[in-house]
Protein backbone atom coordinates (compact mmCIF):
# COMPACT_ATOMS: atom_id res chain seq x y z
CA UNK A 1 0.00 0.00 0.00
CA UNK A 2 2.75 2.40 1.03
CA UNK A 3 4.56 1.85 -2.23
CA UNK A 4 1.43 2.48 -4.22
CA UNK A 5 0.72 5.79 -2.56
CA UNK A 6 4.26 6.90 -3.20
CA UNK A 7 4.05 6.06 -6.89
CA UNK A 8 0.77 7.92 -7.27
CA UNK A 9 2.25 10.98 -5.58
CA UNK A 10 5.26 10.81 -7.82
CA UNK A 11 3.01 10.53 -10.86
CA UNK A 12 1.03 13.59 -9.82
CA UNK A 13 4.26 15.51 -9.38
CA UNK A 14 5.47 14.52 -12.83
CA UNK A 15 2.20 15.55 -14.47
CA UNK A 16 2.18 18.86 -12.58
CA UNK A 17 5.78 19.51 -13.59
CA UNK A 18 5.10 19.01 -17.28
CA UNK A 19 1.92 21.10 -17.12
CA UNK A 20 3.93 23.96 -15.64
CA UNK A 21 6.58 23.49 -18.29
CA UNK A 22 3.91 23.60 -21.00
CA UNK A 23 2.36 26.83 -19.69
CA UNK A 24 5.78 28.44 -19.51
CA UNK A 25 6.99 27.33 -22.91
CA UNK A 26 3.77 28.06 -24.81
CA UNK A 27 4.49 31.78 -25.44
CA UNK A 28 7.92 30.84 -26.77
CA UNK A 29 6.45 28.27 -29.12
CA UNK A 30 3.92 30.88 -30.17
CA UNK A 31 6.57 33.44 -31.03
CA UNK A 32 8.61 30.82 -32.85
CA UNK A 33 5.62 29.58 -34.88
CA UNK A 34 4.62 33.13 -35.73
CA UNK A 35 8.12 33.93 -36.90
CA UNK A 36 8.43 30.97 -39.24
CA UNK A 37 4.97 31.22 -40.85
CA UNK A 38 3.53 33.70 -43.35
CA UNK A 39 1.12 36.36 -42.02
CA UNK A 40 -2.11 34.94 -43.47
CA UNK A 41 -1.55 31.58 -41.77
CA UNK A 42 -1.39 32.99 -38.25
CA UNK A 43 -4.31 35.42 -38.37
CA UNK A 44 -6.58 32.87 -36.67
CA UNK A 45 -3.88 32.03 -34.14
CA UNK A 46 -0.55 30.32 -34.61
CA UNK A 47 -2.02 27.10 -33.18
CA UNK A 48 -4.03 26.47 -36.36
CA UNK A 49 -2.15 24.12 -38.61
CA UNK A 50 -4.60 23.70 -41.50
CA UNK A 51 -1.90 25.10 -43.67
CA UNK A 52 1.72 25.00 -42.67
CA UNK A 53 4.39 26.49 -44.91
CA UNK A 54 7.41 27.29 -42.79
CA UNK A 55 9.56 30.08 -44.18
CA UNK A 56 12.54 32.12 -43.10
CA UNK A 57 11.24 35.20 -44.86
CA UNK A 58 10.42 37.06 -41.63
CA UNK A 59 13.98 36.60 -40.37
CA UNK A 60 15.41 37.88 -43.64
CA UNK A 61 13.05 40.86 -43.50
CA UNK A 62 14.00 41.72 -39.90
CA UNK A 63 17.71 41.25 -40.59
CA UNK A 64 17.62 43.67 -43.53
CA UNK A 65 14.76 45.91 -42.37
CA UNK A 66 14.84 49.26 -44.20
CA UNK A 67 14.44 51.44 -41.08
CA UNK A 68 15.38 49.08 -38.25
CA UNK A 69 17.88 46.62 -39.71
CA UNK A 70 18.90 44.04 -37.13
CA UNK A 71 22.11 43.27 -39.00
CA UNK A 72 23.28 46.77 -38.17
CA UNK A 73 21.71 46.62 -34.69
CA UNK A 74 23.51 43.41 -33.80
CA UNK A 75 26.84 44.83 -34.93
CA UNK A 76 26.26 48.03 -32.94
CA UNK A 77 25.23 46.12 -29.83
CA UNK A 78 28.41 44.03 -29.98
CA UNK A 79 30.54 47.15 -30.42
CA UNK A 80 29.05 48.43 -27.15
CA UNK A 81 28.66 45.20 -25.17
CA UNK A 82 32.19 43.80 -25.58
CA UNK A 83 34.14 46.80 -24.22
CA UNK A 84 31.38 47.44 -21.67
CA UNK A 85 32.07 43.94 -20.34
CA UNK A 86 35.88 43.99 -20.46
CA UNK A 87 36.41 47.41 -18.84
CA UNK A 88 34.25 46.98 -15.72
CA UNK A 89 35.48 43.40 -15.22
CA UNK A 90 39.10 44.48 -15.12
CA UNK A 91 38.42 47.49 -12.92
CA UNK A 92 35.97 45.80 -10.57
CA UNK A 93 38.03 42.63 -10.20
CA UNK A 94 40.85 44.78 -8.86
CA UNK A 95 38.47 46.58 -6.53
CA UNK A 96 36.94 43.30 -5.36
CA UNK A 97 40.42 41.98 -4.63
CA UNK A 98 41.24 45.15 -2.75
CA UNK A 99 38.16 44.72 -0.63
CA UNK A 100 38.87 41.12 0.23
CA UNK A 101 42.61 41.44 0.99
CA UNK A 102 43.49 44.88 2.29
CA UNK A 103 42.40 47.24 5.00
CA UNK A 104 41.75 50.80 3.95
CA UNK A 105 40.73 53.71 6.09
CA UNK A 106 37.55 54.15 4.03
CA UNK A 107 36.86 50.48 3.47
CA UNK A 108 33.56 50.28 5.25
CA UNK A 109 32.31 53.52 3.75
CA UNK A 110 33.21 52.44 0.23
CA UNK A 111 31.56 49.11 0.80
CA UNK A 112 28.30 50.71 1.90
CA UNK A 113 28.42 52.92 -1.18
CA UNK A 114 28.77 49.85 -3.36
CA UNK A 115 25.66 48.26 -1.87
CA UNK A 116 23.70 51.48 -2.09
CA UNK A 117 24.47 51.87 -5.76
CA UNK A 118 23.20 48.32 -6.27
CA UNK A 119 19.75 49.56 -5.36
CA UNK A 120 19.89 52.67 -7.51
CA UNK A 121 17.45 52.94 -10.45
CA UNK A 122 18.94 54.10 -13.75
CA UNK A 123 16.41 56.93 -13.77
CA UNK A 124 18.34 58.52 -10.92
CA UNK A 125 21.40 59.17 -13.09
CA UNK A 126 19.67 59.66 -16.45
CA UNK A 127 19.46 63.43 -16.77
CA UNK A 128 22.85 64.40 -15.25
CA UNK A 129 24.63 61.64 -17.17
CA UNK A 130 23.07 62.95 -20.34
CA UNK A 131 24.31 66.44 -19.44
CA UNK A 132 27.82 65.15 -18.74
CA UNK A 133 27.98 63.33 -22.06
CA UNK A 134 26.65 66.43 -23.75
CA UNK A 135 29.37 68.58 -22.18
CA UNK A 136 32.05 66.20 -23.49
CA UNK A 137 30.48 65.79 -26.91
CA UNK A 138 29.77 62.12 -26.23
CA UNK A 139 26.00 62.07 -26.78
CA UNK A 140 25.04 59.71 -29.59
CA UNK A 141 28.50 58.14 -29.43
CA UNK A 142 29.28 54.64 -28.23
CA UNK A 143 32.17 55.71 -26.01
CA UNK A 144 29.74 57.57 -23.76
CA UNK A 145 27.38 54.63 -23.46
CA UNK A 146 30.28 52.22 -22.86
CA UNK A 147 31.57 54.38 -20.00
CA UNK A 148 28.13 54.58 -18.36
CA UNK A 149 27.65 50.82 -18.64
CA UNK A 150 31.13 50.23 -17.22
CA UNK A 151 30.45 52.47 -14.24
CA UNK A 152 27.03 50.94 -13.75
CA UNK A 153 28.44 47.40 -13.70
CA UNK A 154 31.24 48.14 -11.21
CA UNK A 155 29.27 47.93 -7.93
CA UNK A 156 27.82 44.48 -8.42
CA UNK A 157 30.94 43.01 -10.05
CA UNK A 158 33.07 44.35 -7.19
CA UNK A 159 30.63 42.83 -4.75
CA UNK A 160 30.60 39.54 -6.61
CA UNK A 161 34.38 39.29 -7.02
CA UNK A 162 34.99 40.21 -3.40
CA UNK A 163 32.86 37.25 -2.40
CA UNK A 164 34.69 35.08 -4.89
CA UNK A 165 38.13 36.09 -3.60
CA UNK A 166 37.13 35.31 -0.03
CA UNK A 167 36.76 31.67 -1.13
CA UNK A 168 40.28 31.49 -2.64
CA UNK A 169 42.89 30.35 -0.12
CA UNK A 170 45.63 32.86 0.54
CA UNK A 171 48.49 30.37 0.95
CA UNK A 172 49.56 30.59 -2.68
CA UNK A 173 49.66 34.38 -2.67
CA UNK A 174 51.56 34.41 0.59
CA UNK A 175 54.11 31.92 -0.70
CA UNK A 176 54.71 34.12 -3.74
CA UNK A 177 55.02 37.16 -1.54
CA UNK A 178 57.62 35.50 0.63
CA UNK A 179 59.52 34.72 -2.56
CA UNK A 180 59.68 38.48 -3.07
CA UNK A 181 56.97 39.09 -5.63
CA UNK A 182 55.33 42.50 -5.37
CA UNK A 183 51.62 42.78 -4.61
CA UNK A 184 50.81 43.89 -8.14
CA UNK A 185 52.76 41.04 -9.68
CA UNK A 186 50.97 38.63 -7.35
CA UNK A 187 47.65 40.01 -8.48
CA UNK A 188 48.23 39.72 -12.22
CA UNK A 189 50.30 36.52 -12.25
CA UNK A 190 48.63 34.47 -9.54
CA UNK A 191 45.34 35.88 -8.39
CA UNK A 192 43.87 36.82 -11.76
CA UNK A 193 44.23 33.33 -13.28
CA UNK A 194 42.79 31.77 -10.11
CA UNK A 195 39.84 34.10 -10.35
CA UNK A 196 38.96 33.14 -13.92
CA UNK A 197 35.89 31.03 -12.99
CA UNK A 198 34.47 33.98 -11.05
CA UNK A 199 35.35 36.35 -13.84
CA UNK A 200 33.58 34.08 -16.35
CA UNK A 201 30.40 34.18 -14.25
CA UNK A 202 30.51 37.94 -13.90
CA UNK A 203 31.31 38.40 -17.59
CA UNK A 204 28.38 36.23 -18.68
CA UNK A 205 25.98 38.33 -16.63
CA UNK A 206 27.47 41.73 -17.42
CA UNK A 207 27.53 40.99 -21.16
CA UNK A 208 23.93 39.79 -21.07
CA UNK A 209 22.78 42.84 -19.17
CA UNK A 210 24.56 45.32 -21.41
CA UNK A 211 23.23 43.55 -24.48
CA UNK A 212 19.72 43.56 -22.99
CA UNK A 213 19.84 47.15 -21.80
CA UNK A 214 17.26 49.44 -23.30
CA UNK A 215 16.95 52.50 -21.09
CA UNK A 216 20.55 53.75 -21.16
CA UNK A 217 20.74 53.25 -24.93
CA UNK A 218 17.41 55.01 -25.34
CA UNK A 219 18.63 58.20 -23.67
CA UNK A 220 22.13 58.33 -25.22
CA UNK A 221 21.96 56.96 -28.78
CA UNK A 222 19.75 58.73 -31.31
CA UNK A 223 20.97 58.40 -34.91
CA UNK A 224 18.92 55.80 -36.82
CA UNK A 225 22.00 53.98 -38.09
CA UNK A 226 23.60 53.89 -34.63
CA UNK A 227 20.65 52.39 -32.73
CA UNK A 228 21.37 49.20 -30.81
CA UNK A 229 19.51 45.93 -31.36
CA UNK A 230 17.11 46.38 -28.42
CA UNK A 231 16.20 49.88 -29.59
CA UNK A 232 15.09 48.55 -32.96
CA UNK A 233 12.46 46.19 -31.55
CA UNK A 234 9.91 48.93 -30.67
CA UNK A 235 10.52 50.46 -34.10
CA UNK A 236 9.54 47.23 -35.83
CA UNK A 237 6.14 47.49 -34.29
CA UNK A 238 4.07 49.52 -36.71
CA UNK A 239 1.92 52.34 -35.35
CA UNK A 240 -1.47 51.19 -36.63
CA UNK A 241 -0.87 47.63 -37.53
CA UNK A 242 1.44 45.07 -35.96
CA UNK A 243 3.33 42.79 -38.33
CA UNK A 244 3.62 39.93 -35.84
CA UNK A 245 5.76 37.74 -38.07
CA UNK A 246 8.39 40.44 -38.44
CA UNK A 247 8.25 41.43 -34.77
CA UNK A 248 8.49 37.81 -33.63
CA UNK A 249 11.48 37.16 -35.88
CA UNK A 250 13.17 40.32 -34.60
CA UNK A 251 12.47 39.41 -30.99
CA UNK A 252 13.99 35.96 -31.48
CA UNK A 253 17.10 37.39 -33.10
CA UNK A 254 17.69 39.85 -30.25
CA UNK A 255 17.06 37.09 -27.73
CA UNK A 256 19.48 34.63 -29.36
CA UNK A 257 22.69 36.27 -28.13
CA UNK A 258 21.91 36.24 -24.38
CA UNK A 259 20.34 32.82 -24.86
CA UNK A 260 23.58 31.48 -26.34
CA UNK A 261 25.55 32.93 -23.43
CA UNK A 262 23.14 31.22 -21.07
CA UNK A 263 23.30 27.85 -22.83
CA UNK A 264 27.09 27.84 -23.14
CA UNK A 265 27.81 29.22 -19.66
CA UNK A 266 24.72 27.95 -17.86
CA UNK A 267 26.56 26.85 -14.74
CA UNK A 268 28.48 30.11 -14.39
CA UNK A 269 25.38 32.10 -15.23
CA UNK A 270 23.20 30.64 -12.51
CA UNK A 271 26.13 30.68 -10.09
CA UNK A 272 26.54 34.37 -10.82
CA UNK A 273 22.86 35.03 -10.34
CA UNK A 274 22.76 33.14 -7.06
CA UNK A 275 26.18 34.24 -5.88
CA UNK A 276 25.98 37.96 -6.32
CA UNK A 277 22.62 38.19 -4.68
CA UNK A 278 23.16 35.65 -1.93
CA UNK A 279 25.75 37.37 0.16
Amino acid at each position, binding site marked *: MMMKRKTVLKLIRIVA*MWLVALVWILPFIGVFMTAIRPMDEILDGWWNFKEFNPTLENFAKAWAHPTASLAQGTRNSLVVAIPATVIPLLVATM*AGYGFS*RYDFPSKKLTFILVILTLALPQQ*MIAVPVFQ*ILNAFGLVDRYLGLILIHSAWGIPWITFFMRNFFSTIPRNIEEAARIDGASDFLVFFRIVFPLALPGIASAAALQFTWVWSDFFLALITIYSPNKLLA*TQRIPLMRGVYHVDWGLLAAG*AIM*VMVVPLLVYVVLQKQY*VKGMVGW*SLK
Partner: protein
Amino acid sequence: MIQARNRGGLEKPPSYHCGGGLLNRRARLSHYLFFMLPAVALLAFFVIYPSVRTIYLSFFDESGRPTLNNYVEVLSSRDTFNPSGFEKGFPLGTLLHNLIWIGIHLPVSVLLGLLLAILLRNMPSSSFVKSVIFLGMVMPMIVGGVMIRFMFDKNVGVVNLFLQPFGIDSRTWTAYPDSALFSLIFGSIWLWTGFSMVLYSAGLETIPKEYYEAAQIDGAGRLRQFVAITVPLLKPITTVVVTMTLLWELKVFDIVYVATMGGPGGASNVLALQMYTYAFREFNFNRSAVVAVIITVSTLVASVPMIKSSLAQE
Protein backbone atom coordinates in the same frame (compact mmCIF):
# COMPACT_ATOMS: atom_id res chain seq x y z
CA MET B 1 28.48 30.24 -3.51
CA ILE B 2 26.28 29.39 -0.57
CA GLN B 3 28.32 26.34 0.24
CA ALA B 4 31.46 28.38 -0.04
CA ARG B 5 30.11 30.79 2.48
CA ASN B 6 29.33 28.05 4.93
CA ARG B 7 32.85 26.72 4.60
CA GLY B 8 34.75 29.96 4.85
CA GLY B 9 32.54 31.99 7.11
CA LEU B 10 33.94 30.94 10.46
CA GLU B 11 37.51 32.11 10.41
CA LYS B 12 38.43 35.58 9.41
CA PRO B 13 42.09 35.82 8.45
CA PRO B 14 43.95 38.98 9.39
CA SER B 15 44.63 41.60 6.76
CA TYR B 16 48.11 42.05 5.46
CA HIS B 17 48.65 45.41 7.04
CA CYS B 18 48.16 45.38 10.73
CA GLY B 19 50.93 47.69 11.89
CA GLY B 20 50.90 51.41 11.31
CA GLY B 21 54.48 52.22 10.30
CA LEU B 22 55.25 54.95 7.80
CA LEU B 23 56.29 52.50 5.14
CA ASN B 24 53.19 50.49 5.72
CA ARG B 25 51.04 53.52 5.34
CA ARG B 26 52.64 54.39 2.05
CA ALA B 27 52.18 50.86 0.79
CA ARG B 28 48.58 51.06 1.86
CA LEU B 29 48.07 54.24 -0.11
CA SER B 30 49.60 52.79 -3.25
CA HIS B 31 47.40 49.70 -2.94
CA TYR B 32 44.41 51.88 -2.54
CA LEU B 33 45.27 53.89 -5.60
CA PHE B 34 46.08 50.88 -7.69
CA PHE B 35 43.19 48.60 -6.81
CA MET B 36 40.43 51.03 -5.98
CA LEU B 37 40.94 54.27 -7.80
CA PRO B 38 39.79 53.24 -11.30
CA ALA B 39 36.56 51.80 -9.92
CA VAL B 40 35.95 54.67 -7.53
CA ALA B 41 36.65 57.28 -10.21
CA LEU B 42 34.24 55.76 -12.74
CA LEU B 43 31.59 55.37 -10.04
CA ALA B 44 32.03 58.89 -8.73
CA PHE B 45 31.83 60.43 -12.18
CA PHE B 46 28.98 58.44 -13.71
CA VAL B 47 26.92 57.26 -10.75
CA ILE B 48 27.49 59.18 -7.52
CA TYR B 49 27.81 62.70 -8.88
CA PRO B 50 24.77 62.26 -11.17
CA SER B 51 22.67 60.94 -8.28
CA VAL B 52 23.56 63.92 -6.10
CA ARG B 53 22.88 66.21 -9.02
CA THR B 54 19.42 64.68 -9.50
CA ILE B 55 18.58 65.33 -5.85
CA TYR B 56 19.81 68.89 -6.36
CA LEU B 57 17.68 69.33 -9.50
CA SER B 58 14.58 68.17 -7.67
CA PHE B 59 14.87 71.06 -5.19
CA PHE B 60 15.45 73.87 -7.71
CA ASP B 61 13.31 75.54 -10.34
CA GLU B 62 14.34 76.15 -13.93
CA SER B 63 15.92 79.50 -13.17
CA GLY B 64 18.03 77.97 -10.40
CA ARG B 65 16.12 79.16 -7.32
CA PRO B 66 15.55 76.68 -4.48
CA THR B 67 11.95 75.54 -4.21
CA LEU B 68 9.70 72.69 -3.12
CA ASN B 69 7.28 73.36 -5.96
CA ASN B 70 8.54 70.45 -8.03
CA TYR B 71 7.48 68.03 -5.32
CA VAL B 72 4.12 69.72 -4.88
CA GLU B 73 3.54 69.67 -8.63
CA VAL B 74 4.49 66.06 -9.16
CA LEU B 75 2.69 64.69 -6.11
CA SER B 76 -0.51 66.58 -6.88
CA SER B 77 -0.36 65.70 -10.56
CA ARG B 78 -2.90 63.27 -11.97
CA ASP B 79 -0.04 61.39 -13.59
CA THR B 80 1.13 60.39 -10.15
CA PHE B 81 -2.09 60.02 -8.19
CA ASN B 82 -5.54 60.24 -9.73
CA PRO B 83 -8.32 59.88 -7.10
CA SER B 84 -11.11 60.24 -9.68
CA GLY B 85 -9.87 56.96 -11.10
CA PHE B 86 -11.55 55.14 -8.22
CA GLU B 87 -14.92 56.00 -9.75
CA LYS B 88 -14.08 56.17 -13.43
CA GLY B 89 -11.53 53.38 -13.60
CA PHE B 90 -7.92 53.46 -14.75
CA PRO B 91 -5.64 55.40 -14.74
CA LEU B 92 -5.12 55.62 -10.99
CA GLY B 93 -1.73 57.28 -11.29
CA THR B 94 1.78 55.85 -11.49
CA LEU B 95 2.29 55.63 -7.74
CA LEU B 96 -0.75 53.41 -7.31
CA HIS B 97 0.05 51.43 -10.45
CA ASN B 98 3.45 50.51 -9.05
CA LEU B 99 1.83 49.64 -5.71
CA ILE B 100 -0.72 47.40 -7.43
CA TRP B 101 2.13 45.80 -9.33
CA ILE B 102 3.88 45.05 -6.04
CA GLY B 103 0.67 43.91 -4.36
CA ILE B 104 0.00 41.24 -6.98
CA HIS B 105 3.38 40.37 -8.40
CA LEU B 106 5.43 40.14 -5.21
CA PRO B 107 3.44 37.49 -3.32
CA VAL B 108 2.56 35.49 -6.43
CA SER B 109 6.03 35.27 -7.93
CA VAL B 110 7.78 34.62 -4.61
CA LEU B 111 5.35 31.90 -3.50
CA LEU B 112 5.13 30.38 -6.95
CA GLY B 113 8.92 30.29 -7.16
CA LEU B 114 9.14 28.49 -3.82
CA LEU B 115 6.39 26.07 -4.82
CA LEU B 116 8.06 25.28 -8.12
CA ALA B 117 11.43 24.83 -6.45
CA ILE B 118 9.87 22.25 -4.13
CA LEU B 119 7.89 20.59 -6.92
CA LEU B 120 10.92 20.27 -9.18
CA ARG B 121 13.32 19.09 -6.51
CA ASN B 122 15.03 15.77 -7.35
CA MET B 123 12.73 15.20 -10.34
CA PRO B 124 13.88 13.57 -13.55
CA SER B 125 14.59 16.15 -16.30
CA SER B 126 13.75 18.96 -13.88
CA SER B 127 16.80 20.90 -15.04
CA PHE B 128 15.18 21.24 -18.46
CA VAL B 129 11.94 22.51 -16.95
CA LYS B 130 13.88 24.90 -14.73
CA SER B 131 15.71 26.26 -17.76
CA VAL B 132 12.41 26.86 -19.54
CA ILE B 133 11.00 28.77 -16.57
CA PHE B 134 14.25 30.67 -16.21
CA LEU B 135 14.21 31.76 -19.88
CA GLY B 136 12.21 34.85 -18.98
CA MET B 137 15.17 36.08 -16.94
CA VAL B 138 17.63 35.43 -19.73
CA MET B 139 16.02 37.38 -22.53
CA PRO B 140 16.11 41.16 -22.80
CA MET B 141 13.16 42.78 -21.03
CA ILE B 142 12.30 44.57 -24.25
CA VAL B 143 11.71 41.16 -25.84
CA GLY B 144 9.77 40.14 -22.74
CA GLY B 145 7.49 43.13 -23.32
CA VAL B 146 6.89 42.13 -26.93
CA MET B 147 6.02 38.62 -25.81
CA ILE B 148 3.56 39.89 -23.21
CA ARG B 149 1.90 42.07 -25.84
CA PHE B 150 1.84 39.01 -28.11
CA MET B 151 0.31 36.67 -25.51
CA PHE B 152 -2.55 39.05 -24.85
CA ASP B 153 -3.25 39.93 -28.50
CA LYS B 154 -6.75 39.43 -29.87
CA ASN B 155 -5.84 37.37 -32.92
CA VAL B 156 -2.52 35.70 -32.22
CA GLY B 157 -2.51 35.66 -28.42
CA VAL B 158 -2.58 32.40 -26.55
CA VAL B 159 -4.39 33.91 -23.53
CA ASN B 160 -7.61 34.27 -25.52
CA LEU B 161 -7.34 30.63 -26.58
CA PHE B 162 -7.53 29.65 -22.90
CA LEU B 163 -10.29 32.12 -22.03
CA GLN B 164 -12.63 31.23 -24.91
CA PRO B 165 -13.92 28.02 -23.29
CA PHE B 166 -15.08 30.14 -20.34
CA GLY B 167 -17.19 32.30 -22.62
CA ILE B 168 -14.90 35.32 -22.43
CA ASP B 169 -14.70 37.30 -25.66
CA SER B 170 -11.38 37.66 -27.38
CA ARG B 171 -9.74 41.01 -27.19
CA THR B 172 -6.34 42.64 -27.07
CA TRP B 173 -6.07 42.81 -23.30
CA THR B 174 -3.26 45.36 -23.27
CA ALA B 175 -5.31 47.87 -25.26
CA TYR B 176 -8.13 48.47 -22.74
CA PRO B 177 -7.75 50.74 -19.71
CA ASP B 178 -9.34 48.25 -17.30
CA SER B 179 -7.10 45.33 -18.28
CA ALA B 180 -3.84 46.87 -19.57
CA LEU B 181 -2.05 47.07 -16.22
CA PHE B 182 -3.19 43.62 -15.09
CA SER B 183 -2.03 42.08 -18.38
CA LEU B 184 1.42 43.52 -17.82
CA ILE B 185 1.49 42.33 -14.22
CA PHE B 186 0.49 38.77 -15.06
CA GLY B 187 2.89 38.76 -17.96
CA SER B 188 5.65 39.89 -15.64
CA ILE B 189 4.91 36.98 -13.31
CA TRP B 190 5.56 34.68 -16.25
CA LEU B 191 8.84 36.52 -16.89
CA TRP B 192 10.19 36.85 -13.36
CA THR B 193 9.20 33.70 -11.43
CA GLY B 194 12.33 31.93 -12.71
CA PHE B 195 14.43 34.13 -10.44
CA SER B 196 12.83 33.11 -7.16
CA MET B 197 12.60 29.51 -8.33
CA VAL B 198 16.33 29.28 -9.10
CA LEU B 199 17.33 30.95 -5.83
CA TYR B 200 15.01 28.78 -3.77
CA SER B 201 16.24 25.68 -5.60
CA ALA B 202 19.80 26.56 -4.67
CA GLY B 203 18.66 27.23 -1.10
CA LEU B 204 16.88 23.90 -0.74
CA GLU B 205 20.09 22.09 -1.64
CA THR B 206 21.82 23.62 1.39
CA ILE B 207 19.35 22.22 3.93
CA PRO B 208 20.80 19.00 5.37
CA LYS B 209 18.63 15.91 4.85
CA GLU B 210 19.26 14.88 8.45
CA TYR B 211 16.98 17.66 9.68
CA TYR B 212 14.03 16.15 7.87
CA GLU B 213 14.94 12.64 8.97
CA ALA B 214 15.13 13.74 12.58
CA ALA B 215 11.80 15.52 12.29
CA GLN B 216 10.27 12.42 10.76
CA ILE B 217 11.47 10.31 13.66
CA ASP B 218 9.87 12.81 16.01
CA GLY B 219 6.65 12.28 14.11
CA ALA B 220 6.39 15.58 12.31
CA GLY B 221 4.25 15.54 9.16
CA ARG B 222 5.15 17.02 5.80
CA LEU B 223 3.47 20.36 6.52
CA ARG B 224 5.03 20.64 9.96
CA GLN B 225 8.45 19.93 8.46
CA PHE B 226 7.91 22.63 5.87
CA VAL B 227 6.90 25.25 8.43
CA ALA B 228 9.49 24.32 11.06
CA ILE B 229 12.50 23.53 8.87
CA THR B 230 12.21 24.70 5.28
CA VAL B 231 10.74 28.17 5.79
CA PRO B 232 13.05 29.38 8.59
CA LEU B 233 16.17 27.99 6.91
CA LEU B 234 15.24 29.69 3.64
CA LYS B 235 14.78 33.05 5.34
CA PRO B 236 18.04 34.61 4.12
CA ILE B 237 17.08 33.64 0.56
CA THR B 238 13.60 35.03 1.02
CA THR B 239 15.16 38.35 2.05
CA VAL B 240 17.13 38.42 -1.20
CA VAL B 241 14.26 37.28 -3.41
CA VAL B 242 11.77 39.73 -1.91
CA THR B 243 14.25 42.62 -2.08
CA MET B 244 15.31 41.98 -5.66
CA THR B 245 11.71 41.47 -6.77
CA LEU B 246 10.66 44.70 -5.07
CA LEU B 247 13.51 46.59 -6.73
CA TRP B 248 12.49 45.22 -10.10
CA GLU B 249 8.84 46.15 -9.58
CA LEU B 250 9.77 49.69 -8.59
CA LYS B 251 12.10 50.12 -11.56
CA VAL B 252 10.01 48.36 -14.22
CA PHE B 253 10.34 50.22 -17.51
CA ASP B 254 11.19 48.23 -20.65
CA ILE B 255 8.19 45.94 -20.78
CA VAL B 256 5.75 48.82 -20.22
CA TYR B 257 7.51 50.95 -22.83
CA VAL B 258 7.28 48.36 -25.56
CA ALA B 259 3.97 46.67 -24.68
CA THR B 260 1.70 49.63 -23.94
CA MET B 261 3.82 52.80 -23.69
CA GLY B 262 1.94 53.37 -20.44
CA GLY B 263 -1.35 53.53 -22.28
CA PRO B 264 -4.12 53.62 -23.13
CA GLY B 265 -4.46 57.10 -21.66
CA GLY B 266 -1.92 56.42 -18.92
CA ALA B 267 -3.82 53.36 -17.67
CA SER B 268 -0.65 51.30 -17.37
CA ASN B 269 1.86 54.09 -16.75
CA VAL B 270 4.55 53.49 -14.13
CA LEU B 271 6.99 55.72 -12.23
CA ALA B 272 10.04 54.93 -14.35
CA LEU B 273 8.20 55.66 -17.58
CA GLN B 274 6.75 58.84 -16.08
CA MET B 275 10.28 59.98 -15.26
CA TYR B 276 11.39 59.26 -18.83
CA THR B 277 8.43 61.14 -20.28
CA TYR B 278 9.02 64.20 -18.11
CA ALA B 279 12.75 64.28 -18.87
CA PHE B 280 13.09 63.25 -22.49
CA ARG B 281 9.70 64.07 -24.02
CA GLU B 282 8.70 67.20 -22.10
CA PHE B 283 12.26 68.25 -21.15
CA ASN B 284 11.23 69.17 -17.64
CA PHE B 285 14.36 68.03 -15.81
CA ASN B 286 13.26 69.30 -12.40
CA ARG B 287 10.00 67.40 -12.35
CA SER B 288 11.66 64.29 -13.74
CA ALA B 289 14.23 64.58 -10.94
CA VAL B 290 11.40 64.46 -8.39
CA VAL B 291 10.07 61.22 -9.88
CA ALA B 292 13.60 59.76 -9.92
CA VAL B 293 14.04 60.67 -6.25
CA ILE B 294 10.72 59.04 -5.38
CA ILE B 295 11.78 55.80 -7.08
CA THR B 296 15.19 55.91 -5.42
CA VAL B 297 13.83 56.51 -1.93
CA SER B 298 11.49 53.55 -2.41
CA THR B 299 14.25 51.24 -3.64
CA LEU B 300 16.55 52.29 -0.81
CA VAL B 301 13.87 51.58 1.77
CA ALA B 302 13.19 48.26 0.07
CA SER B 303 16.84 47.26 0.22
CA VAL B 304 17.41 48.07 3.90
CA PRO B 305 17.03 44.43 5.04
CA MET B 306 19.57 43.27 2.46
CA ILE B 307 22.04 46.02 3.35
CA LYS B 308 21.68 45.12 7.01
CA SER B 309 22.38 41.45 6.42
CA SER B 310 25.36 42.32 4.20
CA LEU B 311 26.84 44.56 6.85
CA ALA B 312 26.21 42.00 9.56
CA GLN B 313 28.43 39.60 7.64
CA GLU B 314 31.26 42.10 7.45
